């Protein structure tokens, strides 16, 4: 299964459109795109997970290291359109408490 990551620049907000499955094999791809943006200071990033039906803990790991990097750089990211199965693992792991997931446009969870 392949993963594709597209970066859209949308008035000061960078939107990462991710589609595919995020697992041990594809997570590095997401990491390579997301981490440099997180290490730059002052970025506002939205990660759109509408087309991600599956993510494993390696994928969560990427968002955890992004969170740690953001504390140093002052950049900030939010997740949107998180699908049920993926949202479940954010919830179980307690990461939904410390990672901002845009509830209003979160697909199908409300």
């Amino acid at each position: 299964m392949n993963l594709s990551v597209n970066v859209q620049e949308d008035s000061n907000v960078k939107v990462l459109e991710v589609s595919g499955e995020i697992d041990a094999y594809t997570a590095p791809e997401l990491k390579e795109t997301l981490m440099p943006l997180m290490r730059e200071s002052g970025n506002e990033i939205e990660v759109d997970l509408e087309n991600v039906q599956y993510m494993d803990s390696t994928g969560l790991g990427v968002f955890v290291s992004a969170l740690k990097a953001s504390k140093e750089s002052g950049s900030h990211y939010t997740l949107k359109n998180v699908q049920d199965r993926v949202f479940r693992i954010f919830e179980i792991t307690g990461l939904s408490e410390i990672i901002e997931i845009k509830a209003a446009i979160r697909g199908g969870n409300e």
Partner: protein
Amino acid sequence: MEETIRKNTVKYQKLLQKYIETQDEKSLYDLELISKAFIKKNILPEELINLHIQAMERIYPQLLEEYKLSMEFLLEATVFYGLALQEVDYLRQEKDVLTSEISVAANMQKTLLGTQRPEVSGLDIGAISVPAHQMNGDYHHFTKGSNGTIGIAIADVVGKGIPAALCMSMIKYAMDSYPEATMSPNKVLENLNRVVERNIDPSMFITMCYAHYLPAESKLRLSSAGHEPGYIFRAETEEFEEVRAKGIVLGVMPDATYREYELAIQKDDLIIFLTDGVSECRDGDRFIETEELLEVIRKYIDLPAQELVENVYQYFEKLQDFQLRDDFTLIVLRKEV
């Protein structure tokens, strides 16, 4: 090699001649056996072509010059095939070195993480933990305190394989230094979280559930660090009850605190702990649903605890075509009295 070629040249020539005359399948079968022997002895494709040329020259001494030239051309075309083949040997060796190193490490890990199911009268315990690769990134451990308290630990490191296994040993050594039986589950996790947070790679974390079963009081106390929910099968209603405990994974927040949950356990109730290697099994491209997992457990629910977990494992192993995608750990405890 020269020797093999010489011995086989005659044989090849005879077979070839026989085949040209009769086109029988037997010669082709014998040829298969020769060609296998050639490969085993590292006779490369270009040498095979050459052997063919020589056989033909002997069988048909007046063979057209054009034929000979065409065969030389073919021989030339196979030199790179020979080179590519030789890489197989090299790669196999390299892979064997790595695999055997990993298997030594995997054995060490087994010794290291080995845990005995405690013998407790009135409590039937079953546990299985199978790594997807050679090394296990799941952890489970039982302890039995002098006051009779049973400690149950189950954890899963992000990812699997060697990196996860290396990380896993951190939990083991840190746990070793705690007076587990007298420390409340949430304190165990809070202490572990500090160790993990200090030592772990920023992209990694560990999910863990730690529980105390108190036989005297028939109570289960547990705390969870973002771990997959467990279940209790209630004998009275024959229903599964999800045990969801809140708490963030280990290694992300330096000063995380955990809540302790307490549950009453009745006679014949079954306490179930698992890692996501169990709950996220796949059947082809389809993920199994929770109901499906629970149905499978229900199917074997009357078996002794250890047989139960082994049967569930075998069921999912087969469903996944004998290829685990993640480490698989399943623990059950049945209160018998």
